[in-house]
């Protein structure tokens, strides 16, 4: 089985023409032909025969704004962790295009199952950024209503959510709904049994789910080579559905490919795997030290593929944005950072008795008993304090 034939066979698009409808075929194609790219690292627009996209300058500026604000939010969260306001943070630095491109490809009635790093996807779903910080601050373990924005709670256990996404998609299909589900996971998760089982279930039941793997090259300190002996997108072929690799630092390509994959799912053609080939510029989390396991040169090489810089180059080359636009985004970034900073610091601690809340939907005599006992215990301190203050009066 050759890589090339798998890649070609995996494509969901029908047209295999050599020239694109927009007439850009004369422009040089760059990089790996198995890697879908629409914007080169140098900010040059190229075409791919299977994945066309035509965005207005306003839409392009919108993607740029999303990425910049998401990066700023992420930077602010790292700072807040360093200042002791958050217990932990998982940075998305470098993965803005993979997340914004795929998130903007979803429709409101689609449903997203994230890991714990999908801050950019959450942004595209209009989830309040402060909601994402509750679990990292330690005031809850999730804390938002997943059905408000069709964005599930972050999942810490690696790969579990791919099965939830698949089951949800089976339900979507049962309902006859015209929606799709997208499950996010990383290259490390691709080794988990749950991901393999979700591929099996999704294929067997033709579930409308897109598996979106952000291959950021590192699962904490383990490189992708420790997870897979073939490119991850090729694994889809073994389950009988298409897989495609996209330049994960190219927001246009990610948007185009994810749109096509979601449409593939919505139209009843079943699951699809998208591997966004990207890079985690920072540490795995704020407790990690990547200098122990990866070379500076590698990071520098990927820095030259920065998703935001490349879109900016393109915007400037085409004259799609002016100084006022960038100044506006700077101001918006500052406002967002301020809101996040103040919001986190003012986030109330849960009341002690919240320990006993929502353990069961239908209640439990055992929880009720322990809640009452603990309330009595706490009240005993107040009684003692009242007693001693009364005593000082004598």
């Amino acid at each position, binding site marked *: 089985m050759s890589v090339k034939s798998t890649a070609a066979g995996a494509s969901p698009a029908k047209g295999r023409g050599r020239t694109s409808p927009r007439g850009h075929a004369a422009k040089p194609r760059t990089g790996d032909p198995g890697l879908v790219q629409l914007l080169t690292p140098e900010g040059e627009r190229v075409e791919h025969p299977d994945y066309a996209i035509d965005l207005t300058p306003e839409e392009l500026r919108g993607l740029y704004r999303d990425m910049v604000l998401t990066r700023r939010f992420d930077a602010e969260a790292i700072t807040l962790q360093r200042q002791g306001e958050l217990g932990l943070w998982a940075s998305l630095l470098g993965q803005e295009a993979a997340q914004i491109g795929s998130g903007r490809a979803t429709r409101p009635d689609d449903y997203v199952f994230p890991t714990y790093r999908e801050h950019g996807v959450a942004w595209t779903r209009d989830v309040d950024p402060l909601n994402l910080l509750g679990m990292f601050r330690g005031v809850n373990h999730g804390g938002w209503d997943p059905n408000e924005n069709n964005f599930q709670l972050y999942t810490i256990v690696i790969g579990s959510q791919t099965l939830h996404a698949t089951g*949800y998609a089976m339900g979507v299909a049962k309902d006859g709904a015209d929606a799709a589900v997208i499950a996010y996971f990383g290259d490390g998760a691709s080794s988990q049994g749950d991901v393999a089982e979700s591929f099996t279930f999704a294929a067997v039941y033709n579930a409308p789910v897109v598996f979106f793997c952000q291959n950021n090259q590192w699962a904490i300190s383990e490189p992708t080579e420790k997870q897979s002996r073939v490119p991850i997108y090729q694994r889809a072929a073994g389950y009988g559905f298409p897989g495609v690799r996209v330049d994960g630092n190219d927001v246009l390509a990610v948007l185009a490919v994810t749109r096509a994959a979601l449409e593939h799912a919505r139209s009843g053609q079943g699951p699809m795997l998208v591997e966004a080939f990207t890079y985690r510029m920072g540490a795995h989390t704020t407790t990690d030290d990547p200098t122990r396991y990866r070379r500076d040169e590698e990071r520098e090489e990927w820095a030259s593929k920065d998703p935001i810089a490349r879109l900016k180059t393109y915007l400037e080359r085409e004259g799609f944005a002016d100084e006022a636009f960038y100044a506006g985004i700077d101001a918006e970034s500052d406002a967002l950072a301020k809101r996040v900073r103040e919001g986190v610091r003012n986030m109330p601690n849960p009341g002690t008795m919240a320990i006993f809340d929502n*353990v069961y939907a239908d209640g439990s005599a055992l929880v009720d008993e322990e809640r009452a006992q603990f309330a009595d215990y706490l009240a005993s301190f107040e009684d003692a304090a009242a007693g001693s203050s009364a005593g000082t009066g004598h």
Partner: protein
Amino acid sequence: MTQTMAVAKALNESLRKALENDPKVLIMGEDVGKLGGVFRITDGLHKDFGEGRVIDTPLAESGIVGTAIGLALRGYRPVVEIQFDGFVFPAYDQIVTQLAKMHARALGKIKLPVVIRIPYGGGIGAVEHHSESPEALFAHIPGLKVVSPSNASDAYWMLQQAIECDDPVIFFEPKRRYWDKGEVDVSALPGDLHRAVVAQQGTDITLAAYGPMVKVCLEAAAAAANEGRSLEVVDLRSLSPIDFDTIQASVERTGRLVVVHEAPVFYGAGAEIAARITERCFYHLEAPVLRVGGFHAPYPPARLEEEYLPGLDRVLDAVDRALAF
């Protein structure tokens, strides 16, 4: 309207009624479709409700439970069959880290009405991984409810109540009682799913048991009656939560308690019950709470299971020891 039926048939009728009453109820598992399950608990349901409601799944336990979670998030009420007790462990991660906690993590905004049916326990001459009693491992997990019927009537009613419950319920079916017949009043009002019942009244000692061991305890009570001893038998029915009030009331009458289960005694349900009842009934107890159950050893090969499983004699021996204090 009372009918006589085996426990297996009662479960089957219960599932049928649940499928009829609520279009969101789904049956999922390995071989639950055309075969009707390896114990035939889902017999005929695939034929009558179709493969959209009675779903044969790939052979992947984590996948079965994980996708059931997703279906529940979409508004369905999946009833999952795990083929045998020892096969639940590939799904244990999904049950413990995901199913049990999601309601709390969402601050109550979402519900996970998933029932996981597990045929459990020994006594049928099976090979390894087919005779185990892992209930304590689930009862220990906050967010899960754990129940086990001991007779046909409870099998019929408790399963429907578990399916109606908005919490995840681990439903342990005593597989060696599948073929025991009993009276089922299908028109009665069911009792509280988590209430223990006094299955046999007595005055000298309380035996607390659930699932397959209730029958053994009732037989022990009958045998003891011949010797002039009066044994009270409490059928716990629910292991999480446990109805300690009913056990306490019984022990306050009898002054003695023996807890009986098939699962290993070490860290088992009996330890929890002994500790709580000692705390609640210290001044009523005439003897320490004793436990009868499995050993801290792998479930033995079938040729030894009669020696391993608590039978009449081991229960009566514990009764003798409790009365000797």
